[in-house]
């Protein structure tokens, strides 16, 4: 027995093994984000939050995380080639927002975590059930179908004389269609007509405004979607010009100039999405990770916009707001 060799092998076993283990751990997690609108890039507001959340789980860009963002900028047809790029880059997990993006992501078979924007995933058959999604997609629901009715209720409180609500939504989006159908039913029960204004492409918005000019609504309900989000400024401007109260799904739209919003706390959604990405990175199958429901919902009101359209909201409602922008 060669003593020197023996010692050398001992040392090697002690030193090389941990190094190898570290090298294994250092293999970066590759995340791709896919959005039907603007990409959720690392420097975007959502991207920043998502990256902070991932850091909570120990993933840091440049060390063990690559972050590749793609956005179709409203052109749904682009989703497929964009996803092909991500797949070619061997992404481990996709973080997707919006129904069309998730549907396209599901087709790739890459584990996909939905951050928001798919409505009822069971009804749209994205997943088998909440408890056991079954396929390659899991995520967190935005409860949009249910909340649409709740939003109508809030509109009614702001404008008690509400009769007709223009609902702006994307016809190409099955999630959106479900939302529209659900809210149409609700609207009847609270004595409101829903003026369905579905759009398919950005140019359709001109038609939407024309239609509203023709039949003026008492309020606008805008369903957050790639197409509608892209055109949000035009909607804000139109609502301000026509002095129409409007409700939106997410609070960031209110900071941009919307009147009010009621919806899930998207920070929570991103945090949960990051947690699921972590689980998948550690070997869990998306099909085994339950599709979650948000726990926190926020009601945000922009008092400045309200003043701009001469709206005097009930003080009780303001008291219930989680955030009032002055």
């Amino acid at each position: 027995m060669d003593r020197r060799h023996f010692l050398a092998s001992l040392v090697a076993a002690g030193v090389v093994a941990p190094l190898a283990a570290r090298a294994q751990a250092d293999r970066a997690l590759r995340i791709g984000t896919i959005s039907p609108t603007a990409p959720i890039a690392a420097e975007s507001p959502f991207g920043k939050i998502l990256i902070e959340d991932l850091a909570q789980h120990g993933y840091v860009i440049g060390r063990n995380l690559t972050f590749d963002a793609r956005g179709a900028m409203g052109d749904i047809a682009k989703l497929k080639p964009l996803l092909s790029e991500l797949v070619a880059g061997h992404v481990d997990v996709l973080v997707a927002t919006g129904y069309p993006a998730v549907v396209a992501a599901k087709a790739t078979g890459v584990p996909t975590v939905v951050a928001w924007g798919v409505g009822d995933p069971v009804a749209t058959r994205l997943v088998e059930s909440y408890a056991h999604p079954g396929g390659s997609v899991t995520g967190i629901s935005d409860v949009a179908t249910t909340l649409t009715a709740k939003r109508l209720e809030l509109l009614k409180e702001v404008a008690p004389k509400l009769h007709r609500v223009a609902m702006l939504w994307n016809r190409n989006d099955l999630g959106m269609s479900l939302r529209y159908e659900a809210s149409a039913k609700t609207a009847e029960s609270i004595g409101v007509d829903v003026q369905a204004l579905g759009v398919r492409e950005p140019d359709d918005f001109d038609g939407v405004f024309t239609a509203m000019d023709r039949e003026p609504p008492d309020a606008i309900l805008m369903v957050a979607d790639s197409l509608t989000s892209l055109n949000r400024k035009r909607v804000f401007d139109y609502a301000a010009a026509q002095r129409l109260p409007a409700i939106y799904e997410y609070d960031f739209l209110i900071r941009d100039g919307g009147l009010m919003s009621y919806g899930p706390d998207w920070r929570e959604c991103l945090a949960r999405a990051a947690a699921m990405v972590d689980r998948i990175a550690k070997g869990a199958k998306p099909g085994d990770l339950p599709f979650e429901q948000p726990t926190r919902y926020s009601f945000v009101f922009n008092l400045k916009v309200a003043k701009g359209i001469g709206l005097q909201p009930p003080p009780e409602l303001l008291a219930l707001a989680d955030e009032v922008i002055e």
Partner: protein
Amino acid sequence: MTDAAPGPSSPAPLVGAPPRGRLLRKYIALFAAVVCAAVLGNGLVEIWFLYREQTASLTRMQSEQADAAAGKISQFIGEIENQLGWTTQIPWSVGTAEQRRFDARRLLRQVPAITELSQLDATGKERLRVSRLGLDSVDGGADFSTDPKFTEAVAHKVYVGPVYFRNDSEPYMTLAMTGVRRESGVTVAEVNLKFIWDVVSRIKVGRSGQAFVVDATGRLIAHPDIGLVLRNTDLSHFAQVQAAQAAAGRVPGEADRPTVTESIQGKRVISASAPVARLGWRVFAELPLSEAYAPLYASLERTGIIVLIGLAGAFLAGLFLARRMVVPIRALQAGAERIGGGDLGYRVEVRTGDELETLADQFNTMSAELRESKAREERVGRLRRFLTAQLADVIESSGSEALLESHRREVTVVFCDLRGFTAFAEAAEPQEVMRILGEYHAGLGALINKYEGTLERFVGDGLMMLFNDPLPCPDPSLRAVRMAIEMRDCVAALAIGWRQRGHALGFGIGIAHGETTLGRIGFEGRFDYSAIGTVPNLAARLCAEARNGQILIDPKVEGAVAGLVECEVLGELVLKGIRLPVRAVNVLGLRDAAGDAPVRSVASSAAAAARI
């Protein structure tokens, strides 16, 4: 073989030598056994105590953690109850419906865990419902008067419903309360139990341990891995859950004893549980065994390393000692071989300062003694040629041959030979000559020894003997005469047989006494002890004069034995080489003890007869 003389400078030939291998194995085995037994014994004792202490402290800690967690969950539900409490204080007659709705919505805002809140009036009709998700309703009027959330709340003030799962996934629970007055109705809250996740995920059980909550039926309500909860996981078949449920019915607190079992994730864990007050739930605090007993494993590892080091040490010590032993032993072995091979001058060199050195010294002493003994043997062999065996031994044991140095002394010289031997020897067959000489010498040799005479030399049939030298004796002449008489008788007896075979051989003796020169003569490799001078000469002449059966003695001998022997005077003899004539006397025999009558032996009579 002798060339492979072992030494520290040449260890190579030793490697693989069987004797060394055996010693090596024995030593290493012995050392390893001793070291390992000590280290393992110590390690096991340490580990045993560590195990006992660790188990005890873990038991305590785990139970405390489970209790604390149960307390926190209890507190969480308790806070919701407190928040609900005030809504039940106001009777339905007070305040508008809108006011009530506003209060309820504000409660929802304050308590995120409540997803829906409804108020039932004293008859069980729903008067108000507010929700985070669905539409609010005022005076919906749905009848809950038979629903347990109404009946139970009325009966017990507080009703805690079973855990249910919305969308088969999200855990919820109904909490209903009545106010102090019956007419204030019942407030019902649907509580989203996912909020307990905040509580359990903050509970730290060790470094990697977990706390989780199950309801009375064993279903998972809260777990740091929220996915498990949302998957509606049933844990009722887990050993720790079953044990806790079984024990809950018996002695309180017994279920709190931690058990070692398998966790949901399939790890071996120490599991302790505590009941959550009023809810029928149980909080489990589980710590992986790998972490719980990490100090134990570390200790085991340490012991293992020490055993390995000990083994290495034992191996080296064995190697060293075996070398220490084998090198001198091989030296001894080689020494023994060389000494056995006849090299008595070989010295075994061992300088170990221990028993082995003593042994080597004894080896050297032994070889020196062997050498000495061999030299002595050689000397004795030489002496025995001309001394009797006794004399040779005496001279040898005296340590020196000083006795044999040249000197002068009074000695009695005896000369004897056979008559007619020369003629016989020429005529007879050599074998016959040698046979007769053999009989003759054998008979005389025994008598020389008997009378302790010194056989100076013999030449064929002639023998010359000395008395009083080299060892002195008190009566050399008498001894000489006595011996001579017996010799005469002996040869006379032999002569009867010879005559029968046709050989006529006579025997004569001459004895003289006087001072003569004695000493060793000869040359290297061949020394003799010899008497020189007139006395031997005289004895030889007397012998030559003696006829068959005669013993001629000179006057000095005659004087010495006067009165003790019977003699006959033969007269003056002129002898060759002797200046004066010598009075010759023939000894006939010994007188008896009284000294009167001469005792003549049969042989001498026979000799006399033969003469006639």
